[in-house]
């Protein structure tokens, strides 16, 4: 029973990792760049929701939708303003660029007087609800995280499978040049991928906020989502979620069964093993380069 309890908390934590990793993968597939600012986008999304609810007095659902939309727009603007001029440069410079974006976002939020340095709680309607299932205690927050992640996955799957936009995005991620010749506006799609990633990050932030707190440094959890993306395979959307679940469960179990200190490093140990055994990840695509 204890095991099941740990499993469920691991799964709900893993869903958060998976959602952040989903952002990495969306951006990586579209533009071949890795965004280190994903955790900070998540933090910004949570703060956005907080501001809408407490300052402007939006009802919960309105605030959630509005902050997701706002973050999506922010992602598009960010791509247009900062990322696009650098496309075609070595991957290393783009990594440094996104690290810079992360610094700026974190610093800017910290600079807001009396708000940035404090921890806040997001007032959600499902706070403190819990269900009993035999000896199992299920928190509403955890169930909402799992449910919302599942819903988001179905939504994204449907989008990539059935909508014209999603198919165009798939095409451009497979071969940008060919997609461009077929009349697909690749640059605009790259912007949309950033927007989508930022929106997903906002969802992750809003889901994480009731479990932990809203704080300027909550974006550092993004560093835990890298292992998730690597374990799943950096270029695979389902892989991101599966990787997140793996990392979450391993972390939750090792925090209980293994000595102190393993909880924080379990994710990274898993990554090192994964890179040694199967560098492409569980669902990684295998492509060969022609010389």
């Amino acid at each position, binding site marked *: 029973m204890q095991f099941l309890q740990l499993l469920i908390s691991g799964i709900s934590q893993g869903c958060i990792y998976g959602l952040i990793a989903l952002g990495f993968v969306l951006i*990586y597939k579209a533009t*071949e760049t*890795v965004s280190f600012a994903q955790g900070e986008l998540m933090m910004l999304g949570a703060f956005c929701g907080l501001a809408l609810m407490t300052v402007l007095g939006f009802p919960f659902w309105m605030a959630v939708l509005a902050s997701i939309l706002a973050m999506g727009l922010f992602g598009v603007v960010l791509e247009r303003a*900062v990322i696009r*001029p*650098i*496309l*075609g*440069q*070595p*991957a*290393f*410079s*783009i*990594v*440094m*660029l996104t*690290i*810079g*974006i*992360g*610094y*700026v*976002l*974190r*610093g*800017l*939020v*910290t*600079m807001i*007087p009396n708000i*940035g*340095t404090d921890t806040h709680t997001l007032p959600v309607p499902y706070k403190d609800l819990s269900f009993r299932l035999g000896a199992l205690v299920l928190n509403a927050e955890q169930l909402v995280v799992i449910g919302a992640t599942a819903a988001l996955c179905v939504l994204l799957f449907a989008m990539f499978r059935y909508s014209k936009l999603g198919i165009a995005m798939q095409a451009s991620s497979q071969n*940008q040049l060919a997609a461009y010749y077929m009349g697909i506006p690749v640059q605009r799609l790259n912007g949309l991928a950033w927007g989508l990633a930022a929106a997903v990050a906002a969802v992750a932030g809003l889901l994480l906020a009731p479990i932990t707190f809203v704080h*300027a440094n909550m974006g550092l959890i993004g*560093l835990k989502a*890298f*292992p998730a993306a*690597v374990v799943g395979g*950096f*270029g695979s959307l389902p892989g991101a979620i599966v990787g997140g679940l793996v990392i979450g469960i391993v972390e939750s179990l090792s925090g209980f069964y293994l000595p*102190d*200190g393993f909880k*924080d*490093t379990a*994710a*990274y*140990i898993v*990554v*090192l093993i994964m*890179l*040694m055994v199967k*560098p492409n990840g569980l669902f990684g*695509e295998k*492509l*060969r*380069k022609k*010389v």
Partner: protein
Amino acid sequence: MRFIFKTSYEQDLRLAKHGGHVFWYSLLAVGLVAAPWVAPEYWLAQLTFVLIYAIVGLGLMLLAGFTGLFSLGHAAFLGVGAYTQAVLTGMGWPFALSLACAAGLSAAVGVVVGLPALRVKGIYLGMATLSFGFIVEEVFARWESATGGNSGKHLVPPEIWGFKFESTESFYFLCLVIAVVSTLAILNLLRSPTGRAFVAIRDSEISAQSMGIHLARYKTLSFSISAALAGIGGALYAHKLQFISPDQFNILQSIDLLLMIVIGGLGSVHGAFLGAIFLISMPQLISLSKDWLPAAVGQAPGLQAVVYGAVLIAFVLFEPMGLYGRWLKVRTWLQMFPFYRKGLFKRQKSFQKSDRLR
């Protein structure tokens, strides 16, 4: 404008290309040696930190700038060096011997990290080094019998043949000598076949391999040299601060080191020094500018992060060759004065290099 027509291989290999180099670097050397008599003690201490960071930067520059492998966990090597030095000098070992051990142990750890680098590259290598950094930081915090855990560890001042480097001046000279020796070592390495092999790997792994370069050997070598320099830097850093704790060697420190060499200028030895000067002087500049800014901005806690991030973004967007690249442009402009062409340093874009295809 000076034209150098190379007529022999010796001329091509020479460290100082022309008389100007000899003149300016001699001037710099005189200035550095004279610094303790001229500069106030505070500035001397800052200069010592610049030298220490430059030693670490040289190592990271060799790895990231010249071999094209970037490490997101370099602070871990710094930490291995620092803790080795702390433990060994604490046991009464002589300074030089423990410094050699610190460098050697860091290099050995570097080889261990370098081994996965043979299989992965690009962002996957970043992940591997990042994970390694986290694990090592946790080891420092947990291995209390050796490292003192989170309460940290004190160090005794370095001592060579009975002479204690206690004063700021003497420690400055110690760092200066080590920095000069490591710079010369790196410069010599870079003009040797090994250095050429590193650059070849950076430019194209496939063509380097087809020229007969043993990728695995050179990548591991690059990792170990880089880690050894970081270990030496870490040992000096520990002596300078006289106190170390695990949180000095965390991911933010690693990112600071990367930021340093990117802003200094990737792929140039000058860049390591310029970046170190930048990294050390930045907090001072920010605190100076606080008086000018309105109080709401100047006193806000996040100011430093914003400035760091903004500077980093600006450099990546507008000056990817860093401070050294800026200096090159200024110099070229002066040399060619009325005839400077606008597109002289235009970057070329390449969409062919992809991590996904391997």
